[in-house]
């Protein structure tokens, strides 16, 4: 620990160019000597109420000067017992719990949960529903990544990307709101379909949003990707090798930044993802910078998927035609005896699932989001389990942060893209 080498890829060279203006070129590595002093280890508590921990995360750090020797994360401050509550609710009532877990990408959670239940019940949703869910899931991947982008940029001192990102997020909020009536707690899906079909003008609004979004991504790209301060704060920070990343259960952009091409959309395609034309960005170094690059590219790829999905959006019903699963329309309910009986049974008893269990995972914005449901044949699950990607990703932070500075610990925590609602559940 005698010296610390800082290497900037882009910087201003002290010499002038031929035209008399400062020439830009790579700087020589700077060696910062650190005196070998006797030191006193400190125990520092960060959080749980701290803006840089991205939620109620508490990190207890043992420090030698500014160097982190040991990080002990404490979680559970937001524990709401969602899985326990789920055992007391009917299958459709659980949907409202799912978006409270990852409130940064709620529709992915809504969709993943009903997809697991539909697999358990053997329900094949309509083509329109599949495409709509793909659009919503990709929209929320952008939603989650934009929040990550803004807050992470703030953590390294760049305030402008935060404003740009939140301006765009506001437009997705508006799309959420016109579809579901809520901005965050969307609860948009139901077993066998959606809460409602897309409202009039929604696809046009979505299309104009994805047409405008690349400009903002380019602007942030311009501000951060070759910014010397950003490079110095992210490159070679929090490195994890591909083997370690797999062994620690990393998924999502965090894993792919280490060079492992594992994406649930490609490896176990659901909802015809194999027919969409999109690429999965793969990093090389497994550091914070590669995680940043992967997420930036994923947003562009999500735009491509939404574009194709809007093109192929078929007409027809969004709900399946099964009166034992989907509520009848209000008109039928009032005029038709049989519909009224189905309505009564569905409201009072809920949908009956067969005995058995199913596991379904989708590629969430944070990583692989698994839903595991176990049924005993009733209208409530015996067990509803969420495989939380952030929980598994966060468990690696003691390994990643060891030997780095405190400020790097903040950057590493930000680069993992965690959401505490899902970690604590």
């Amino acid at each position: 620990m005698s010296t610390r080498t800082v290497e900037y890829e882009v910087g201003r060279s002290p010499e002038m160019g031929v035209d008399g203006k400062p020439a830009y070129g790579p700087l020589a590595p700077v060696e910062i000597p650190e005196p070998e002093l006797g030191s006193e280890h400190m125990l520092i508590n960060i959080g749980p109420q701290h803006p840089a921990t991205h939620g109620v995360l508490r990190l207890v750090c043992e420090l030698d000067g500014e160097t982190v020797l040991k990080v002990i994360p404490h979680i559970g401050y937001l524990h709401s017992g969602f899985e326990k509550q789920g055992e007391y609710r009917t299958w459709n009532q659980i949907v409202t719990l799912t978006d409270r877990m990852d409130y940064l990408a709620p529709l992915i959670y809504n969709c993943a949960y009903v997809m697991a239940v539909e697999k358990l019940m053997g329900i094949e949703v309509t083509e329109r529903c599949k495409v709509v869910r793909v659009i919503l899931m990709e929209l929320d991947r952008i939603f989650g990544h934009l929040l990550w982008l803004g807050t992470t940029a703030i953590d390294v001192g760049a305030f402008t990307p935060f404003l740009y990102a939140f301006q765009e997020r506001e437009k997705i909020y508006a799309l959420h709101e016109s579809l579901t009536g809520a901005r965050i707690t969307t609860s948009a899906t139901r077993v066998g379909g959606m809460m409602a079909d897309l409202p009039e003008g929604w696809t046009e609004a979505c299309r104009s949003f994805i047409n405008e979004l690349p400009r903002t991504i380019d602007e942030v790209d311009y501000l951060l990707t070759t910014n010397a301060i950003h490079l110095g704060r992210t490159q070679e920070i929090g490195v994890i090798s591909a083997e370690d990343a797999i062994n620690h259960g990393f998924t999502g952009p965090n894993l792919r930044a280490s060079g492992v091409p594992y994406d649930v959309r490609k490896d176990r395609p659901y909802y015809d993802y194999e027919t969409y034309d999109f690429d999965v960005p793969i990093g090389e170094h497994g550091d914070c910078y590669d995680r940043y690059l992967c997420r930036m590219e994923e947003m562009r790829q999500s735009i491509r998927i939404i574009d194709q999905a809007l093109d192929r959006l078929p007409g027809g019903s969004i709900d399946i035609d099964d009166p034992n699963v989907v509520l009848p329309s209000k008109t039928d309910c009032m005029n038709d005896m049989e519909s009224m009986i189905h309505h009564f049974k569905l409201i009072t008893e809920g949908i009956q699932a067969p005995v058995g269990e199913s596991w379904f995972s989708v590629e969430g914005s944070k990583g692989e989001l698994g839903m595991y449901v176990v049924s005993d044949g009733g209208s409530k699950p015996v067990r509803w389990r969420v495989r939380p990607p952030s929980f598994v990703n966060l468990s690696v932070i003691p390994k990643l942060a060891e030997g780095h500075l405190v400020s790097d610990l903040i950057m590493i925590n930000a680069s993992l893209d965690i959401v505490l609602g899902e970690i604590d559940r």
Partner: protein
Amino acid sequence: MTDDTPFDAVAAGPRPSDAHDPELGGHPAEVPDHPSVTALRATFGDAIRAHQLHAGDENVVFVDPAALYAVLEFLQQDPDQRYDYLLDLTAVDYGAGTPIQVVYQLWSLGFHRMLRVKVELPLDALEVDSVEPLWKTADWLEREVWDLFGVTFRGHPDLRRILMPANYAEGHPLRKDFPLRGRFSRAEQTRRALALEVDDNYTVLERELGAEPQIVPAAPAGEPDDGRGSDDTMKGE
């Protein structure tokens, strides 16, 4: 369906389930071969207790708890299996005194294969080997299962509560015999929360680290003199 009012259901706890009954299990009697299960049967024989198929394509293998570590080690290390991902580790309690199932969800990146391994632990012997040496993922996931179900993982480096507070005394919340609103009254829960000391928020290890300043001696030779001279008093001998 139960005809309880919602509040009765909360007070009585969930009704016991009969889904653990193999007669009722929602899986076909005839299960097509799965390459990993065939290899497991050839290697471990009777330790592989059952093989089920759920939801169309999900293979579930029931394993003798004593052989669990060996089975999972085989699945991870064997060149023809290579389950390099432990996607999920959780538990299922069916209630009414039936065994608690610990569930391991495995995924092989190379072979594109998924397998679910289960062990059944009777309530009086809730103990199984930790797989933390195989997959580091298991570290926090096993802590969570210990916290919420009370399953002990032998050989886990740091088995303590993770989601519930360290001083939580009401038991293991996801067990079926645990009422939805907890075992203590709201008044008792509040009293306990208010009685917490600052030190209760730190683990034993953290308290040791923070109790006294840890003095690390300076490097003996070649140390540049920083001119402060009062090093000894600073170290507070």
